[in-house]
């Protein structure tokens, strides 16, 4: 993580490379973070209020369907975080962006966390609706496999000591996972389907009432903001951690 020489570029790429300097990233992120947290809190409060108190209960599933406002955004984020990690992996391997591996290391446990939230809330939802805590249904199984891949990636991070080598190994694993995830999704769908089909992103518009859709989308945005905030905090922590490591090493070598 040496300071990158910033190539002369305009617009997006200029910003992309100017943030490549960890020091500059720390300054900017420290400035924006409180506002990001505030926005996250407001969006989440609004979404939860609309979802838990204003939106009507489902005519079949009753009040239990309100779990959806946590469950579905968590599922979205579980996938979105993996997409973020894939982009970071490309950043590590292709552009050698100094913050890419920091971003990826910071994202993996958060993604795993969202996946766990999705599975646990799904289990709570499944009990009154399907009468079972766990069912080997296609989408649940896909999310479970996604969680296992997250756990494998985290284990790989921990197993390799040297941060730069760990970053590249994890980047390769993340890309292999990204190629495999659609195949896994497809094959598991083919294998078994009980889950209610996706009702927001599909042809001919969402099959969900607008009163329920609005809080759901707001919660989706709130979860994304939450991820952004946690992600930045974890990135800052990782950068500080590496600096501390370097200082400790330097101090140790001086004593010799």
């Amino acid at each position, binding site marked *: 993580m040496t300071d990158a020489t910033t190539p002369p570029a305009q617009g997006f790429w200029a910003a992309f490379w100017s943030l490549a300097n960890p020091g500059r990233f720390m300054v900017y992120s420290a400035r924006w973070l409180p506002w990001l947290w505030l926005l996250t809190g407001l969006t989440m409060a609004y979404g939860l209020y609309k979802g838990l108190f204003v939106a009507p209960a489902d005519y079949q599933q009753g009040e239990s369907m309100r779990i959806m406002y946590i469950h579905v955004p968590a599922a979205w984020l579980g996938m979105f975080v993996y997409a973020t990690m894939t982009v970071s992996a490309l950043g590590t*391997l292709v552009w050698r962006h100094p913050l890419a591996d920091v971003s990826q290391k910071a994202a993996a446990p958060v993604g795993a966390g969202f996946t766990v939230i999705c599975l646990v809330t799904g289990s709570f939802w499944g009990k009154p609706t399907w009468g079972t805590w766990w069912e080997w249904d296609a989408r649940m199984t896909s999310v479970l*496999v996604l969680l*296992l*891949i997250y*756990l*494998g990636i985290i*284990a*790989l991070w921990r*197993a*390799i000591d040297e941060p*730069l*080598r760990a970053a*590249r*190994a994890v980047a*390769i*694993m993340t*890309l*292999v*996972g990204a*190629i*495999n995830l659609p*195949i*896994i999704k*497809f*094959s*598991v769908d*083919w*294998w078994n389907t009980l889950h209610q089909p996706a009702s927001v992103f599909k042809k001919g518009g969402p099959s969900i009432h607008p009163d329920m859709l609005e809080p759901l989308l707001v919660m989706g945005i709130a979860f994304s903001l939450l991820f952004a905030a946690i992600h930045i905090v974890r990135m800052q922590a990782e950068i500080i951690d590496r600096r501390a490591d370097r200082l400790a090493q330097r101090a140790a070598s001086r004593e010799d």
Partner: protein
Amino acid sequence: MIAALRAVLARELTLARRIGAGVELGIVFFLILISVTPFALGPDQKLLSRLAPALLWLSALLATLLGLDRLLQADEEDGVIDEMMMSAAPLELVLATKALAHWLVTGLPLAVLAPLLGLMLAISPDAMLPLALSLLVGTPALTFIGLVGAGLTVSLRRGGLLLSVLILPLTVPTLIFGVAVVREAAAGQPFATPLTLLGAITLIITVVSPFAAAAALRMTRG
């Protein structure tokens, strides 16, 4: 280049035989695995025949995993990987050849032996050939997925467990379609769809995995 790859293949097979991981031992391993199963499940023929495809596919998975952590590690330790990197043949193809050798002593014997093992597990005669076919088509995918894991964990002292954790989730599609072929065949249904999908997965993985594994090995050299 072809000569070099042929030499790699011959070397791998000789090594496998000399360190006690040859074809014969692989066959004995499968035989023991299938013989132990009825003790765990009870000698119920109906139950066994229902579980047979799953059992054979799990055996394939186990056999693939067993030697995998040493697949590249032994060569890494004595410097053979460095030699391979400097050779005229691309590292990707050398690794693919190594994976092929690994498959020849694990996947292939299982596929050939499958009808006999199927007989022991009372699988229906209609499903016998599809069973062997599915293993023949699908087990290369397992080996090649394993190659990526072996590349990533090559420098780790105790990489075996991590290797399994990394690659087992990726074997889900292979397992699904492999077992589906046998299940459809046993039910008297046409099984071309799962079989072709299984073939597609094997082809994709065979292409992608040597590149990923080679990238992983180059990475350990900074």
